[in-house]
């Protein structure tokens, strides 16, 4: 994954666990500060080893860490650094979800080697949608949960999110979320 993702994970760990603990985790994962350059594409093992070490040191499950990471990515990376582009892709929670594919496709065109996720938003009934997340990677569902909750929080909407089904395959993973709008905050 691109360094901008590592950067965000580093930021999350620093904020939640403290600078000293972060340095311990980074060193234990065999990394140094130069492994976090936003425009450089790194092997996925960097994220995995960071999460693995953080799990061992803090006792928190990988899914909990991924969830926090997703939430953190929305507020501290996406809207902090890409506000213009994000705003353009949706003025509401739903509009942005609808345009996520469009946006990631654009990222793909300027970031060589990038493997974007894919999202499909299907209306089911009034105020209820299904969001189908497909990825060539496995194990990031909790990250997407964090992203969605982070987005809902950003747009001040209350959304109930459940997993309808979750399939692992050779191609990666596909998760179907059911999203129900419960109102605004």
């Amino acid at each position, binding site marked *: 994954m691109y360094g901008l993702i590592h950067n965000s994970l580093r930021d999350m760990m620093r904020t939640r666990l403290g600078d000293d603990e972060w340095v311990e985790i980074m060193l234990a994962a065999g990394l140094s500060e130069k492994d976090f350059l936003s*425009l450089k594409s790194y092997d996925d093992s960097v994220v995995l080893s960071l999460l693995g070490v953080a799990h061992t040191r803090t006792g928190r499950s990988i899914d909990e860490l991924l969830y926090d990471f997703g939430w953190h990515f929305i507020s501290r990376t996406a809207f902090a650094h890409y506000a213009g582009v994000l705003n353009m892709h949706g003025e509401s929670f739903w509009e942005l979800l609808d345009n996520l594919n469009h946006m990631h496709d654009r990222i793909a065109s300027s970031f060589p080697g990038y493997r974007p996720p894919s999202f499909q938003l299907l209306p089911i009934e009034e105020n209820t949608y299904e969001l189908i997340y497909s990825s060539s990677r496995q194990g990031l569902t909790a990250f997407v949960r964090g992203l969605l909750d982070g987005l809902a929080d950003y747009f001040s909407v209350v959304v109930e999110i459940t997993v309808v089904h979750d399939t692992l395959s050779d191609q990666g993973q596909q998760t179907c979320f059911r999203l129900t709008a419960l109102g605004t905050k």
Partner: protein
Amino acid sequence: MNLPHGPGLDSVFPLYLVLDKENRIKFVSDQLRREIGNSCLGEYFVSGFIVKRPVLAVQMPDIRLLNRQLFLFITHDGDFAMRGQLLPPSPGDDDITMLITPWLTWMQENRLSRPLSPKSFPVADAQLELQLYLNTQQMMIDDMNNLLADLQTATDQAITANKVKSQFVNHISHELRTPLNGIVSAAELIKTEIVNPQVEQLITVIGKSSEALLGIINQILYFSQISSGKVNLASKEFDPAQLCADVLDITRLLAHENNIQIQLQIEHSLPESVTADALRIHNVLLNLVGNAIKHCNGADVLIKVSLNSIPETSKTSLLFEIQDSGPGVPIADRHRIFEPFATLNKPKNNSAPTSGLGLAIVKSEVELMSGHIGITDTPSGKGSLFWFDIPVTVNVTASIPPSQDNSQIRFSGSVLIVDDNEINLRLCMLQLQKWGLHVDAAESAAKAIELARHNQYQLILMDIQMPEMDGQQATRLIRQFPQYRDAPVIAWTANACEIEAKSYVISGFSDTLVKPANNQSFRNMLIKWLPASHG
């Protein structure tokens, strides 16, 4: 109305407008109407918008001639900026179409909070990608700046740590020197008191070992001063040939012991007077010649001196070459021979211990004088050729005072020399007596004060670091005797550091003489402070 390009255009270019034959705005696409409304309808294009580019558009009678140009234009209320291009008119049709995209960078710069719909961008328009890329690039710049800041912090810490280390070495060397001086002097004194030859031999060993140790400590101290930039240059006029002769004088005994001849070759055109840091050049040459004698296996040593002009400048440099015919230094080791502690040849068991800093000091001194130093093969291929060059100013008329070149110079008066080192005292005494001075010696501050109180010396030469009471304290007390209020009291110190030398003058000394002082510096000091005569 007939759309010139059919309804499909909206899906490729959501924003466009159509101009009639007079270039009035005749039609705006649906998506463009959502962005800017349709109040511009019927306006001339150039007055309906603020047209930034092409500049010619406002002056040209017919903008349709500019159909290969990029149009940049903004609504009059400054709410929406666009990029556009005119399509060439279709044959038989007076209308022309302008294809438009939002001008993203302008909008980001000036109307950041205004919502922009992705629906207004053609799918193939790369502006959004560019925006994403630029945002990420900004993050990358931040990453780099953070790395640079980390690097800076690490460098600062390393520099501080290095400073602390130098201060520590400095301090420890100073502290070691005082008791060691005591041992050296005591061993000398005991030697004169004893008759048992075995004990005398042991005492000689103690004396020699502690002197060697003192030498090493002095070198460490000097190296730490030089590497922390505490040493300043002291330029003066000197005769380079005389400088070489002085070095030869000093090394003659060592050469004799090793059964070696030293040859000195001085280029004919070598000037009689140049200006540079003579003392430091003297040190460097002495060190290299000493090394050559030690490593030349009984064959002769050749010293060459010449004047060279520095390429592409009007400046000149003195080039010194020291050739020996020892085992030589393998090419692979040459680059590290000037590094501290680079011991290439293990010292023989019976040879004197060294600090491993000799050549490192030499290199630092040469570089301090903006010179260069190196080692190459000798013309014969045997041994090594060390060379160094130092930029100098050539003095056209030799302005060295004639009295300096005068071995028959005499001084009058009596002098008190104070040093806790017996050998220093004796050597200095001999030297001063040669010039006709009456000399009293004191090996402690207390004794010096006592002698000064009862005598009227024309000059006092005072060691700084002495056990019990140091030279500075002693001088303060001596200055209280009325006869010494203005008399020359010279600080005699091994600290060549100029800042320290100045601090001595501030603290009550009249001048500073740096140890070891050669004949010439002694003579110069005396000329400055005492009446002299020739004869």
